[in-house]
């Protein structure tokens, strides 16, 4: 009997198209049944190739892909019980919405009456009833997206694979369809694997965020883990929201160490999990942009702050509920503070002002 579980395990999966370079390079990952998993990374990082290998449109050069306890390498998509939603949707332009959605049932030999009934039920689920007889070209982008989703979901797959499903939509619709995707995933109760290059999309949707770079997984974890506790500089910079600083370890004192920097007294960083720090090591640390507080020179520091970095304001961007203040704190890297709107306008800075950047010592995070 076939398993209905949609848990996925990738074991040492490699893919090379030219036999020389691995586009996907030894990927190991476990995705739980019914999870919403987002692969994220810049273009060319291998995320789409992984998706296509899970879907069965590409064979791995090495490694195993296990779905529901069964190695599916070499099986056709139908046998895997996966369904894919293609980037730019790949709707059949000569078929109506109803026929597009019923297509998979048609090729499975379901009778016309049955498949049209099933298609109509699915059309209702994605709220397209009044468009059932239209051709894809007569639909808006968001409607096409829902047709594509319905077409993929109609076969009751155990895994639904989405290749940049929202990239063809404009910003407002994207946020709307994002909720729609999550709602569908919960309604269907199946595993969704979603490939994107938009950080916000990934952390808003996913139970499991997988950050990739050059065919390798850099970090996989819950959205909050990946965003708030990046492993390394790459993940921190890619996910955004962090200031990354680097320097040499000046001294190690109990539960903290001090990083030599432009700061008069260095930067004090908690040791946390990183236990093997010795004097002279060059390491990166991350400080969340919204943890940075800005005070005018000579004013009292907020409680818990020991580090003080003198900076000049380079630029200010109003973002609504916060204000983005760009500083020249560190010579090579960008350093940004997200100041809550009300705090900022209580005593607004202007470009060129000298300020002190500071943060609660506990919020600095050493990176690998």
């Amino acid at each position: 009997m076939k398993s209905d579980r949609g848990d996925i395990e990738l074991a040492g999966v490699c893919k090379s198209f030219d036999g020389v370079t691995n586009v996907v390079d030894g990927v190991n990952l476990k995705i739980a049944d019914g999870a919403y998993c987002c692969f994220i990374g810049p273009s060319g990082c291998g995320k789409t190739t992984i998706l296509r290998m899970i879907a069965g449109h590409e064979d791995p050069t090495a490694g195993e892909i296990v779905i529901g306890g069964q190695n599916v390498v070499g099986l056709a998509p139908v046998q895997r019980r996966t369904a894919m939603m293609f980037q730019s949707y790949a709707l059949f332009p000569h078929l109506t919405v109803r026929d597009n959605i019923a297509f998979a049932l048609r090729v499975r030999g379901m009778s016309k009456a049955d498949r049209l009934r099933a298609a109509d039920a699915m059309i209702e689920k994605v709220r397209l009833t009044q468009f059932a007889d239209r051709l894809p070209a007569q639909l808006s982008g968001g409607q096409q997206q829902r047709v594509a989703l319905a077409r993929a979901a109609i076969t009751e797959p155990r895994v639904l694979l989405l290749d940049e499903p929202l990239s063809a939509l404009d910003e407002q619709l994207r946020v709307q369809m994002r909720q729609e995707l999550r709602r569908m995933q919960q309604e269907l109760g199946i595993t969704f694997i979603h490939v994107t290059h938009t950080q916000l999309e990934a952390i808003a949707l996913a139970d499991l965020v997988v950050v990739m770079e050059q065919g390798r997984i850099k970090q996989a974890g819950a959205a909050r883990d990946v965003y708030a506790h990046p492993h390394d500089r790459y993940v921190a910079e890619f996910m955004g929201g962090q200031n990354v600083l680097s320097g040499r370890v000046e001294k190690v004192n109990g539960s903290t160490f001090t990083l030599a920097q432009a700061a008069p007294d260095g930067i004090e960083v908690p040791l946390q999990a990183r236990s093997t720090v010795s004097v002279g090591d060059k390491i990166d640390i991350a400080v969340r942009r919204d943890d940075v507080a800005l005070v005018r020179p000579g004013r009292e520091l907020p409680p818990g702050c020991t580090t003080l970095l003198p900076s000049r304001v380079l630029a200010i961007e109003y973002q609504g509920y916060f204000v983005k203040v760009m500083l020249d704190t560190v010579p090579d890297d960008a350093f940004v503070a997200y100041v809550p709107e009300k705090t900022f306008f209580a005593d607004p800075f202007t470009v060129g002002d000298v300020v002190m950047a500071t943060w609660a010592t506990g919020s600095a995070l050493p990176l690998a």
Partner: protein
Amino acid sequence: MTEFEAFADMQPSLSPALSPAQISPRANLAGWLYVSPLVLVLVPFFVAPILVVLAASFFATDGFGGLTPGFTLASYVEVLHSALTLKLYLATIKFTVVTWIFTLIIGFFVAYFLVFHVRNQLLAIGLFLLCTVPFWTSNIIRMISWIPLLGKEGLINQALLGLGVIRQPLEVLLFSDLAVVIAYVHQLTIFMIVPIFNSMARIDKKLIEAAIDAGASRFDIMRLIVVPMSKSGIALGTIFVVSIVMGDFFVVKVMSGGGSASVVSAFYEDVGVLQYPSAAASAVLLTLVLVAIVSLILRTVDIRQEITR
């Protein structure tokens, strides 16, 4: 109203056709300038001759090539009353249908192979050019070249005799209806390949992948995706093949050895014996029949939309 209903209500605006009144005179002039080269060629070399033929079909004749301007339907009555006309049309339509079936099948699969199986684009272009090799020589030479292949002493007969498959050379190979069809198929398959190739090449490969993802077999993909999406190419190729075969007399004459005739060969002979009005009437009739066939074909596909896609 939920947000979903709200944007379900948004209908994409399909650009409405501009009425002539909405086009500015300037744009109008530019439009005419664009078509003027074609008009300058078509009017003197296409429209005018057709009008001459149309006029001649209503003229009376003295039987020796002399035409009396006037208006008489005598030629049409003669053509339409002749049992020969029906016979010739049936013969021509038979050749047309048989040729169409073979060119369609061969053309479709050659195009399919080139588009979906040849991964290397350079190779595809090379193979495509290979299809045009027969056209590097003239039609007459191509016709003559069939003799050493299909003739009584030809390669095929020699080979079959040599293998002991037959005792007497096959007469049916040359100067027969079979030979006519072979020549047509050979000559016209390219007219099917090109438009079908063209419409197939525009099928997004992702659609094929999406169909595979849905569980479609190779045959399903061909039946449900490739054929419907190649419809316009098939229609264009059909128009080429049908109009060329219906308008041909040379291939029939040469390849049948004079044994078969076509609609055109009949009025070609009328011209030979100076019966201009009846030849003109036959020509007008054939033109009308072809216009009817072509408009029927065009009804099945929106060629215009296809070409501008």
